[in-house]
């Protein structure tokens, strides 16, 4: 392996170990089980069992937990290095700051994507048992786009962790994620209904903020709508890659300028 690949893989491994040794995932799984288990045995009006509402709730949990894990893992990449001063031995090694950023980002991404895969496997099994439809095409599309969501969210909170305090970063990223998932689609509509200063603010948000709702295929997956075109999937992925690249470029400028 070339030295830079060795460096990146060492840094990535660190981020992955950080996630798995904290046992966050176990907590998340127990929590999800506790929330979902009672619903699985519920028959409203004593009639036949419905499955979509459990699927929707399970997917909501998947989104919630994946966002928390993605934001959390990547927000924890740098601040502890500064606090415990491990950044000094790290940067005293023959690595450029750009490589450190790339390695850590890829590690956070690998960690959260692995968690995402586990979540979707669990969801796929649950939905398969309940609905009798095993891993339809729309499931794979949902997973594919959700992965793009992780690409953006981890880059965003990495940038935030270098510019804001830890709590400010998590609050901002959390609000942005939830806000865009809920209102992102309706921003232009909301903007046209506003008087002038608010209108421009909303339009600015519409153009600048990450459109995380692009990655959200829950509606189609739960209600068994047909899959979307692969062209759209690719476009959405390109959007995610560009957005993440912009965040990382900014982060690398910040990191390069930073004095320790």
């Amino acid at each position: 392996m070339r030295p830079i690949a060795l460096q990146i893989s060492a840094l990535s491994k660190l981020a992955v170990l950080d996630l798995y040794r904290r046992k966050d995932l176990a907590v998340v799984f127990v929590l999800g089980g506790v929330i979902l288990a009672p619903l699985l045995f519920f028959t409203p009006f004593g009639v036949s069992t419905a499955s979509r509402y459990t699927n929707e709730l399970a997917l909501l949990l998947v989104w919630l937990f994946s966002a928390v894990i993605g934001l959390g893992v990547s927000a924890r990449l740098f601040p502890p290095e500064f606090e415990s001063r491990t950044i000094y031995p790290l940067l005293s090694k023959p690595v450029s700051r750009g490589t450190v950023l790339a390695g850590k980002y890829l590690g956070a991404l690998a960690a959260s994507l692995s968690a995402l895969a586990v979540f979707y496997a669990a969801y796929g099994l649950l939905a398969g048992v309940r609905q009798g439809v095993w891993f339809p095409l729309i499931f794979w599309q949902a997973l594919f786009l959700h992965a793009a969501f992780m690409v953006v969210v981890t880059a965003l909170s990495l940038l935030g962790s270098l510019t804001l305090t830890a709590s400010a970063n998590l609050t901002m990223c959390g609000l942005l994620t939830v806000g865009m998932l809920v209102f992102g689609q309706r921003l232009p509509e909301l903007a046209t209904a506003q008087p002038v200063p608010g209108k421009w603010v909303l339009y600015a948000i519409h153009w600048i903020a990450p459109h995380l709702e692009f990655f959200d295929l829950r509606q189609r997956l739960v209600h068994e709508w047909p899959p979307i075109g692969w062209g759209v999937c690719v476009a959405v992925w390109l959007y995610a890659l560009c957005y993440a690249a912009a965040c990382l470029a900014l982060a690398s400028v910040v990191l390069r300028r930073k004095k320790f």
Partner: protein
Amino acid sequence: MEALIMEEVVKAFGVVRAVDGLSLSVQQGEILGFLGANGAGKTTSIKMLLGFFRPDRGRVEVLGKDPCDPAARIKIGFMPETAYYYPFLNVRELLALYGGLCGMGRESIARRTETLIPRVGLSEAGKRPLRTYSKGMLQRAGIAQALLHDPDLLILDEPFTGLDPLARIQLRDLILDLRRQGKTVFFSSHELSEAELICDRVAILRQGRLVSCGSVRELAGDGGQNLERIFLKVLGVDAQGGRLA
């Protein structure tokens, strides 16, 4: 040949001039002790030697290269003042991480780890996560990571603090051993007795300025004083009262 050169280096943080026109050079194969009171600017100088930031003025060169260039750091081993290494790793994983950062392959990392861990006395604690380590044990892990890639120049920031007497002796022997192998060691310290024992030369810093530099014998002159007295005299402190003269 010089392993390390600082020329007229100035670094200010706001109004505080942490390093103020420091010129210093260290020969290859030499052990140099970098002394000074708290806040004298030792750590700041070391950070510039490692390229963490550039000096406001002056020139820094390490092993013939600009330290801000990552390639310059390939042959430098650094141990920071205080670092709380990743609490969720054990010392082997820590060394694997740093080895990877140095571009070492898996086998060479394993080989070096096997020699270094017993050498810094962490064989028993090798499997425990670092969060369970004491301060001195973390310091030992720090020494191991600085030596991991077999560097030619070692920059150690207060390596003796927190070590028990036995470990101090071992570290002293280790540093002397490194000199024998032709390595250069540059370390800051408050342990004047240790410095006196092993240093070829000492440099004494006061408010960012180099006030004295030379071998202990040169600095002592005819009086045959020990390093502690020299230190106090150079810093202008009254030996009895500890007041500034």
